């Protein structure tokens, strides 16, 4: 019995080794095939979309994209630059969209006077969009497109 288990273990370890090896060759990383002791030519840095025009959300719960540059915007213990325009008190003057009410809730659903600490770091969810083509083909289909295709008699 013991030898059988031992044999199976060795076989499975060997097999997983082969599997990892073959997967590793398929995965395309930022460094791609660059050797460890070599420096890869860096990818081009694209311009950030700065149109100030709101983008359509790709799915209902997508955190809205930031349609402007955020270079050197400080979000730290001292200050939150985003809130200088997007906070409830500032939106009248700035005409920027106010952060949603969910951002004032703690995890138990209690409303706080200030933005919740768990929502403080805006760019954890909200990102800018670069003016570039997708790196890989995207086959994602929006829920509404899917529903429309099903109900559409053609």
């Amino acid at each position, binding site marked *: 019995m013991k030898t059988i288990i031992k044999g199976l273990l060795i076989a499975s370890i060997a097999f997983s080794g082969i599997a990892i090896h073959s997967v590793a060759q398929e995965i395309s990383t930022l460094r791609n095939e660059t050797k460890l002791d070599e420096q890869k030519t860096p990818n081009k840095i694209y311009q950030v979309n700065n149109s*100030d025009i709101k983008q359509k959300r790709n799915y209902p719960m997508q955190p809205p994209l930031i349609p402007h540059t955020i*270079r050197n915007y*400080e979000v730290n*213990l*001292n*200050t939150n*630059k985003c809130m*200088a325009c997007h906070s409830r008190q500032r939106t009248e003057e700035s005409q920027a969209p106010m952060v949603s009410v969910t951002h004032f809730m703690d995890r138990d659903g209690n409303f706080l006077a200030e933005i919740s600490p768990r929502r403080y770091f805006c760019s954890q969810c909200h990102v800018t969009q670069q003016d570039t083509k997708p790196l890989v083909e995207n086959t994602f289909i929006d829920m509404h497109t899917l529903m429309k295709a099903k109900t559409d008699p053609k």
Partner: protein
Amino acid sequence: MGAFNTSLELSNTEEFCISCHEMESNVYEELKTTIHFTNRSGVRATCPDCHVPHKWTNKIARKMQASKEVWGKIFGTINTREKFLAHRKTLAEHEWDRLKANDSLECRNCHNFDYMDFTAQSTRAAQQHSTSLASGEKTCIDCHKGIAHQLPDMKGVEGW
């Protein structure tokens, strides 16, 4: 008088400013990451461009004020990062007040309102510059705080 002016000009260079480690390892390090240090066109601002008035009389007045900084240097008021951070709000407020009082003169030495092309600005920038800035209701520093250095605790600061 000539020698006086020469030494004055010598003290008006970035090399002179950052010969003190208080300046070199705090504000200068922070400046390096900002658009006033590196940008697409390669034009950059040095310390005195923003912090010393260009007009001779105003410059002398500012230099006399700055003699207090010699005192601070001798007694090590901000000779560690911790001490500097503790004083940051006071120091920043001095600069904000100064720029507010002179209608952001040092900004305007390079950024001339009369030659701003709103069509080349982002919609948001053009909107604000053509209204609040044009009417004189706001001055550069009212909105553009912390553009060249990190910000202090902004609690209670107007517009934040």
